[in-house]
């Protein structure tokens, strides 16, 4: 199941979001060694996890976190324009129909096959969310180690500038165009997992 969540004022009080922040800490801090803030030694939460962020969260049969992504509005401060502005050759795409994908997270404790299933559900959800909400463009900053995989999803993807080595990681900025053809492009690459969408209000009861 994919849960669509808009952040609450107190994100750690919500069980689904808390599980996501914990998984993010395990992936981005413990595994990938990113230098980002950690709350209570368990949760990776930064200044962009505010009431303006939207989350897509893939959960398992028992409601556990499997994968998640955070969407930031580009009309507000976001990762590309505040932290990595040098990665974009011209001013980064910005607008009500442009969102930035950040913290694309596949939880640990999954086998290679399970991770692919989760990844596909998340990518499908990203395309579906964009089409439902009039989003034409996603932007994102990616480690180049991931680039080949992001391109191989089959969607239309373009670089925004020349990658740079920043704190030992080679990073690049990308734009992804979402059109009514996108689901078919993804499906050609085996990404057409049908996932039930659960709207944000279900989260309030959690």
């Amino acid at each position, binding site marked *: 199941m994919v849960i669509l969540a808009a952040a609450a004022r107190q994100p750690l009080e919500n069980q689904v979001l808390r599980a996501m922040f914990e998984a993010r800490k395990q992936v981005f801090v413990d595994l990938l060694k990113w230098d980002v803030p950690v709350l209570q030694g368990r949760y990776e939460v930064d200044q962009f996890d505010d009431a303006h962020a939207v989350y897509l969260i893939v959960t398992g049969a028992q409601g556990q976190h499997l994968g998640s992504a955070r969407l930031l509005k580009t009309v507000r401060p976001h990762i590309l324009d505040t932290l990595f502005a040098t990665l974009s050759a011209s001013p980064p795409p910005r607008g009500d129909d442009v969102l930035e994908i950040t913290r694309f997270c596949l939880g640990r404790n999954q086998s*290679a096959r399970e991770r692919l299933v989760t990844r596909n559900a998340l990518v499908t959800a990203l395309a579906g969310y964009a089409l439902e909400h009039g989003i034409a463009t996603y932007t994102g900053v990616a480690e180049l180690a991931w680039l080949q995989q992001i391109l191989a999803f089959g969607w239309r993807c373009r670089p925004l500038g020349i990658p740079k080595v920043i704190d030992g990681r080679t990073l690049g900025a990308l734009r992804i165009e979402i059109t009514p053809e996108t689901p078919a492009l993804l499906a050609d690459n085996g990404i057409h997992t049908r996932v039930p969408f659960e709207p944000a209000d279900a989260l309030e009861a959690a």
Partner: protein
Amino acid sequence: MTEAELAQALGQISAEMGFRFFALTHHLDVRCAPQPVIRLDNYPRDWVSYFDDNKLGASDPVHRASHVTSVGFAWSALPKLIQMTQRDSEIFERAERNGIGDGFTVPANVPGEANGSCSFATARGCPVPEENLALAQLVGAFAFEAARRLWRMRDPERATPPRLTDRQRDCLIWATRGKTDWEIARILGVSHETVIMHLKDARVRYGVTKRTPLAVHALFDGTISFVDILKS
């Protein structure tokens, strides 16, 4: 875009970045590969023939190194990535005699598909253009994806690797961990015959007759991963 246009574009941008040669390829022995194979290059013909005659597609040191990293690397960094053998040094000497100098390789590993890479090489005696390596990495990744889309369009059926069922995959993972069929049957709670059948069906799907090539193929195309096998 056609294959020829992609090769032309790659040749042009390679030159602009300060390289003489490019080679975009899947890491298979191109003469007997089961899947459609991607390969575009402008290497000297003598070198390409030598490479294929000696079936270097899977054992070439640059290819091997690109399986242990997902970011681009200069060939001078090879000894840090893999154990270099006498044969590897001979391959480099041979390449140099064919006019190939230093290089930079971008690994192109797509889960569920054969590994590949896009390499850029200088002419003998010319240094790698350090200032353009981040750009080369970007070009390599996009070029490989462009080639991948061309090849998929050409033969969409064969572009996807064989798929194993969950049960076949479970049996294979236990087999790669060294368990016998009988042990696997006990672990999975199925009959001995069922395990034999699953592994046989899996071999048929990959068109191999023995267990070791089955494991290697399934590892190679990402159906199973080293993490699956090695985690306790």
